[in-house]
């Protein structure tokens, strides 16, 4: 009987492994889809604080630490991916974001607003070609042509990653 004990244990483990995998998959499926913040592969930045990301999208910060000008890339007006990203990152509606950018432009602090891109593949292509750019795609759409930044030290596959499409999506009521 003693010689059978390892076999029984192995069978038990094998039988419970699919259950464990399913539980993990269920946990991941319960997480709202993450938005990956992407930059050019040559960008030395590996990550940003969430507050820095917001300042970049609000055009308060316009240069990378290496001195290169930042180009913010958004999805086109009217696309849900744009409104959601602006709500999550900036806490603003599309209209309020547009007003903010024009106000900053009038003050002479912004020379050119964010770029607008029609689709996720086009976003990847733009960021791949423009070294100073920063954009976003759904985490499962990011590929090796771009670098995915850590936000507050976390990558999109981390359950605590802060930029998730349905986690907020709407403007911060306190802002």
């Amino acid at each position, binding site marked *: 009987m003693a010689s059978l004990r390892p076999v029984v244990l192995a069978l038990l483990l094998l039988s419970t492994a699919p259950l464990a995998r399913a539980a993990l998959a269920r946990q991941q499926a319960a997480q709202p889809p993450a938005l990956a913040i992407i930059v050019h592969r040559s960008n030395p930045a590996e990550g940003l604080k969430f507050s820095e990301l917001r300042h970049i999208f609000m055009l308060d910060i*316009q*240069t990378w630490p290496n001195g290169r000008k930042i180009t913010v890339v958004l999805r086109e007006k009217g696309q849900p991916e744009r409104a959601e990203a602006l709500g999550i990152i900036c806490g603003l509606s599309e209209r309020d974001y547009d*007003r903010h950018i024009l106000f900053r*432009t009038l003050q002479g602090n912004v020379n*050119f*607003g964010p770029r*607008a*891109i029609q689709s996720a593949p086009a976003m990847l*292509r733009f960021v791949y070609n*423009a070294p100073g750019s920063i954009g976003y795609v759904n985490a499962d759409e990011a590929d090796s042509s771009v670098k995915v930044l850590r936000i507050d030290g976390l990558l999109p596959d981390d359950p605590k990653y802060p930029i998730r499409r349905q986690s907020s999506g709407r403007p911060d009521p306190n802002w």
Partner: protein
Amino acid sequence: MNPLKGASSRRPLCRTIAVALFFVAFAAGRADAQTGEHEHEEVVVPGTRPEVMAHAFGSVEWLASKPAETPNSFGLGQFSLFVTSTLNDRFSVLAELVVEASAGDTRVTTDLERLQVTYRFDDHLNISAGRYHTGIGYYNAAFHHGSYFEIPIGRPRIFRFEDEGGVLPVHEVGVSTRGTVPKTGSALRYVAEVGNGRRWINPDEEGEALDQNQAKSTNFGLSLQPESWRGLSIGGSFYRDAIPIAPEHATGEHIAAAFAVYRTPSTEIMGEWLQLKFHEEDGTSTASRGGYLQASRGFGKLRPYYRYDRLEIPTNTPFIGSFGSSEFHILGLRIDPADWVGIKTQYERRHENQGRFNVVHVQLVFVF
């Protein structure tokens, strides 16, 4: 406003050409309606070719007062053409040209309000040369000629433009630097300016861009925008200049400003206080003080607002003593019926040199 309109009005041909060129640039430079966004299916690497963005701000007004010194009247406000262009990753140009109706007919005056070329080292250092709005306090360098972004109708009394009885050097020609202070996470910002100063003597003579003495005006300001309280900005500035009153004689001008501003899309609370001091060579000085406090809160498309506006000018103050003191209470409602269009209606209780009187003012503002 150009305080020296007379000089430019003697060159109508040049002005016409300048306006025509501006309109051409405006028409050619239209990007997205408001934010300058370009659609990029074809990838164009930013900074590799000049890009132009253009906007226009306009307004139409109606005003009535009681006791009625003048009949109630419709009028055109400023029409501001605003163009920015990135020449490359570092250099950019900004120009703001204001066209104003000078009478009930179609005669207009034009003023080149801002023309700046800027070199951007990074977020910590931006150097601009040209004609700019001085960074005195908050309001002047925040709202410029974009009446659309102002909640009440008109600027606070102390920030009025020079050719509307303004008391401050609102515009200057010179060099301006601004940026964020390193290691403060964009929270602390500065502005430092060196310019010709305002021309108080013979302002309409030729050569508006030239200084009348060796002394240059200087202005330095700091503002704090704490990350933990988004929308809040607290700061101050100090301006000084020497105004020539006769050969080898000058009057010192010192302007101290302090402000606290809280602006979010839904709420605006702003307060500023300034002291304007003129120092004579015999050691005497006169001080004028003014400021405003205003608040508004948006409820959907409706936004009620209130402004208290005060300016005290002793009558013996050089240059501005005759302008007179004033005190305004303004209560109004702004409605934004559509994107980039606003209608403001306000009641003003004014106390000026000619006594107390009431004003009803309506303004339609738009951007395109």
